[in-house]
């Protein structure tokens, strides 16, 4: 007849975030490499050419790191004060950086001394960038001006003074050498065209603007300021597209993943959030130890580099796909594999008559004991250390099964001090777990019934019983508090929802109900899972 049905072990859903393709992709990084810099890391810039070194601007230095080195391959230290915004030119040969001392320096990546010095700003220069024709430099400064410089002559070409506060971010167009965009603490973003003497477009972000980003197609502009990340459509004259408010502190930096499908934002709240650029929903979240000031993503998302206020540079490299493959191959080459598959892949010929071998079903040890009605032994098996600590759901399922068979009392009775202490420690560990509570409370009741007479004989058991009592008292207090909170929430919900009259007056009169009895909706209750 039918075979023994093994005890059902319930599968509990894992708590925490759900596993999606995104999380798998973004989790596929190695443990971060952390490098201590001298001060807050204000800027990170990846070289556009291989091997994609990146420049780290921190305190009075700019370090250049190679893709896999933990030591800087190059250091620029000729700054008299804090350096800002070290950026590579599109050919990766030159590097420009602003400074607290109002001067803008241009370096050769291979050299040490500044090639050019651009003097003219009256306050610290926080923004520097090359234009796309590679011969000019655009800068933005705390003196509210942004200027354009010629590299060969190191002369100032243009100066715009339209902002009314510090200019802290800016970006040049990669497609048009005449365009650049600035963001300022006066809450505005301005688009400048060097062929005109005024800004051509101005957008109001509503918060001091901290960071700017242009999409590769340059149709969309992303700005970060305050807790908001906003996306603007430049082709529609700067119409706001989306406003994202996912951080709870100021957003300081923005970055696009290499395929342009994901947008990353780093914030002072120590999170980096990854957005889907089609839906603008957060798809992943990274946590860091300190407030984030700068963020960089290597081409092909090979590494994520984050600079923080405490001067720590965190570099995460993507796990090489070849590593995992090698592991699989190695596993398969175990010598026992062939032994296991021997004869398994034999394909029967057409006229062969197959005689099935009865499949011997495997039963867990506790199931074998349950099959023989050895209830005490089954409980002992389920209480073995490994099961008890690693898979408490098995232990609970066996206790539940024994209870269903009406044999739990028999299984619990007749234990010595050691056995009882093991049982009690399991109860103490799990009786307040909401998933196990209904089963374990019955078991605890029975234990108390059975062993009531032996209380006081063993100090170990007595101590555990006291702990159990303490635990349960605390749990009852918690539950009471929670119920109170729930009641308060209900009251708040009931007040906040608009009262809606059900069109029932008509019917109730017809049905002989008085008007006073007419009913109102009860707000749908939130299900507590």
């Amino acid at each position, binding site marked *: *007849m*039918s075979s023994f049905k093994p005890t*059902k072990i319930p599968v509990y859903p894992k708590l925490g975030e759900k596993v999606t393709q995104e999380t798998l992709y973004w989790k596929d990084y190695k443990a971060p490499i952390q490098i201590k810099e001298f001060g807050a890391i204000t800027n990170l810039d990846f070289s556009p050419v291989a091997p994609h070194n990146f420049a780290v601007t921190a305190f009075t230095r700019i370090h250049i790191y190679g893709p896999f080195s933990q030591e800087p391959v190059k250091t620029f230290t000729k700054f008299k004060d804090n350096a800002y915004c070290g950026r590579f030119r599109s050919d990766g040969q030159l590097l420009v950086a602003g400074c607290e001392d109002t001067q803008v320096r241009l370096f050769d990546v291979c050299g040490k001394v500044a090639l050019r010095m651009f003097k003219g700003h009256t306050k610290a220069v926080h923004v520097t960038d090359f234009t796309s024709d590679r011969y000019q430099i655009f800068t933005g400064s705390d003196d509210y001006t942004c200027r354009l410089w010629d590299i060969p002559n190191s002369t100032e070409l243009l100066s715009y003074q339209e902002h009314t506060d510090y200019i802290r971010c800016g970006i040049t167009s990669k497609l048009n050498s005449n365009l650049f965009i600035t963001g300022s603490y006066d809450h505005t973003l301005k688009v400048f065209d060097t062929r005109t003497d005024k800004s051509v477009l101005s957008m109001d972000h509503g918060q001091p603007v901290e960071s700017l980003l242009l999409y590769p197609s340059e149709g969309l502009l992303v700005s970060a300021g305050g807790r908001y990340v906003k996306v603007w459509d430049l082709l529609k004259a700067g119409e706001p597209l989306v406003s994202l408010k996912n951080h709870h502190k100021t957003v300081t930096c923005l970055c696009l993943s290499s395929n342009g499908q994901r947008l990353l934002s780093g914030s002072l709240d120590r999170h980096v959030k990854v957005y889907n650029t089609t839906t603008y929903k957060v798809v992943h979240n990274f946590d860091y130890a300190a407030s984030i000031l700068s963020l960089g993503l290597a081409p092909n998302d090979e590494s994520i580099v984050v600079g923080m206020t405490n001067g720590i540079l965190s570099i995460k490299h993507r796990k090489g796909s070849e590593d995992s493959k090698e592991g699989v191959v190695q596993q398969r080459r175990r010598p026992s594999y062939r032994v296991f598959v021997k004869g398994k892949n034999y394909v029967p010929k057409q006229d062969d008559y197959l005689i099935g071998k009865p499949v011997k079903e495997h039963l867990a040890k506790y199931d074998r004991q349950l099959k023989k009605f050895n209830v005490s032994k089954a409980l002992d098996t389920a209480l073995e250390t490994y099961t008890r600590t690693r898979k408490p759901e098995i232990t609970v399922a066996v206790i539940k099964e024994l209870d269903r068979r009406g044999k739990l009392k028999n299984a619990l009775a007749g234990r010595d001090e050691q056995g009882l202490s093991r049982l009690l420690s399991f109860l103490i560990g799990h009786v307040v777990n909401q998933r196990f509570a209904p089963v374990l409370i019955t078991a605890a009741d029975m234990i108390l019934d059975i062993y009531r007479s032996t209380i006081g004989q063993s100090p170990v058991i007595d101590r555990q019983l006291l702990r159990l009592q303490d635990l349960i008292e605390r749990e009852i207090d918690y539950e009471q508090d929670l119920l109170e909170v729930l009641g308060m929430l209900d009251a708040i919900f009931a007040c906040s929802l608009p009262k809606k009259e059900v069109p029932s007056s008509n019917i109730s009169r017809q*049905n002989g109900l008085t008007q006073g009895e007419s009913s109102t909706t009860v707000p749908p209750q939130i299900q507590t899972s």
Partner: protein
Amino acid sequence: MVEHGEIRVVHRGGSKINFRQPVFTHDSRFLLCASANAVKVFSASTEECVHHLVGHTDLVTGLILRPSNHLQVFSCSLDGTVRLWDYDDGILIKTFVVGFPIYSIYASGSHDGVLFLTIPAKNDKRSDAFQLVAVQLPQSSEQLVEAREISAVLPDVSANPGAISFGRAGQYIASVCGLHLEVFFFKKQKSFRFSLKEENNKGIKNTFTCAACHPKEDCIATGHEDGKIRLWRNFSHKKEYTHSALHWHHDAVGALSFTPEGTNLLSGGVESVLVLWRYNQETQKDFLPRLGAAIAHIAVSPDGSLFCTAHSDNKITVIHSYVRVSAVIQGLVRGDRIWTDLVVDPRSKALVMNGKPGHLQFYSLQRDKLLYNLDIVQQEYIHESGLDQFEVVKVDFDAGGNWLATVEERKQNSAELELNLKLWAFDEQTQSFVLNTTVPAPHEDRISDLSFSPDRTTLLVSASRDGHFKAWALAPPTDAEDQSPSWCCDFVASYHGLAPHCCGFSADGSLLAVGFQEVVTVWSTASWELLTTLSQPPGHVRNLCFGRLSCSKYLLGTTTKNQLCCWNLLSCSLEWSTSMDVTLLLADPLSENMAAFCFEAGSTDLFVFKPSEPRPLFSHKAVCSGRVLRAVFSPREELLEGCEEDVQWLNSSRLFFFTPSMDLMTFSTKAEEDRLMASSKQLVIGDQVSMTPFNLLLGKRGQTEGQEVAAGSERVQPPQGSSAVKELLQTPAHVLPSTSYLCSMFVQSLLISTSDKREQNNVTEEEMESEKEEDDSEDEETQSSAVKPDVASGGGRTGDPTDPGLTKAQTKELRRVRKLDYSWLRDLD
């Protein structure tokens, strides 16, 4: 009231087959079972029902093979008759009228012409006192015979047929009742009585439950309430008797039986384990565990090769003597009560209800056969009396039959209720339901109603006594790992803390009506807004039903205070109401008809009506006594063309219902019954093989072949060197197919079929004629050649008859040359 004319209530299968011990026929091919008012003859190998022996007018209570003729069987019934049947042909031979309700029947080979019957004690007014009597069967050739020669044998016996057993060669009869074992010796006409104490010092009950006598030795085995089996010996003396106890069963022994040679003793009980004890070596036991339900009866075939156990879940298991199950005959399982509503599976059109504990049964209404059991609880069932077990309490299918929702619950003695809501997806590949989602504790209290949305969107609503109803919807997979969608809670609502008792969807699935005690709330399923409330106090709403098709604007409700209300949902007002105690309200899914079962004066009446008018289309007074609590409309396979007004409601679907005594009944017209009877007559199969398409195909061939063989056997024909014989003798044995396959071919080759013979005769005649012709006109070769091919024995044309000198190869060459194209020669000119 409308005249109900020819519509009547008909019993429609599902009757018990485990009521009494099944009987094996002498050749072990058939199994006879008492089944309600009939005796069913099952084939022991194919599990098919071969014959229905119909004739008794009340419950059949016993069966026994006639000791003097093994092709005949006696059956006794509560209607006071004993009938003699020929089970092979399914014919009633004789009816003996005894005149008392008979509870069991016994016979022995050494008492020819005498039957032993259990009948109520005459002088005793108690209803549970029975006596064993011997009835002399009168020798008469008439069909209907009065058997009045009754003599009492034992005064105080049990009504349980397993409690009485004939001893070795019919010398004595043993009966157990209460705490006594009584043995009656026929030769001495004297009985001995042995008693046990009611309880021994451990407080275990000693009551006898059953008895069996060893066929070859003087030994009686008795089963007891406490699970012991006692073997009594030396009982022909009042004092010196001995008994020894065997103890394996932990619960009462349900049935005992010795094998015909007395080498083994079989016992079974609540544990549903068949125990095979070796006689005289009782420490050696064989077990057949997990037979599914408590064993009520054990029978052994006369040759000892087959055992058969009847179980409490209306099942008979046929078991080989080497303790392997060989066949299972399963009837409609009726547990202690029907928990679930009756549902019709949209795919198989089978009736679905709870069956074995923790299972759903799919029961074919057309064929009166259990299709399969679906294990819902998926837990090892512990066979122990007094244990709380999981029961399937609610079940529903979605409209397409792709999803099945079940609720199982277990009420523990004092602690809280265990509830599971399970959703099953239909798997096309395995053609069965596969568990998709389990929701442990979906509600805090019992689920009072469960309903799927009738349109194609997958939406399930469960209403519970905890005051909430929840809507469950199919959610897309949330994790990257698992692919299949699963169900999750979509919406929870309550209404003034009242407990919902019933819920129902409108035909298009846009509205949901939930009955909260006295108030009916109507919700929109699209936005989950409360649209309106309807109420018609006093009385709690018991049933809610939306009208269908043209009446879909009506909502019908019944209340506990004997009200049937019909609301118009367009005007939100009461359309009509009437005062009747409706226990069950059903909507026909294929028409706008509704059926209401009303309880009145101790019996149930049926009214069929359309919601649009408060006038019954059909009514039937007193369909049965007591309340009808479960009924279902089942769609017909083919529509009927009843045109009278009161029959029309039966055209598209049939109405089935369960009486309080758990009989499945239906409504049927006279014409339909006749047609069914005719078709069932055709279906009676004469042989033990099951009626499969294969069998229909091959069986027919076998029959015709058999006839041919019979025809051919009349002539004696010496074997000739036919090709089949040659093939048989000359091919090496290892490449030959099996002999059974060749046998018929070989035999056939030895015969000369009649048609062949005639042909040959014709041929010889023609031959003679043509020879004559040849003689007549030697030069007219072409004409004769037209006749000749028929004469040729080699088959096919054998070249030019005029040129006998040419060999085959030569004629072929000639033909080839003739076909060649010589036109190119012309160009040479």
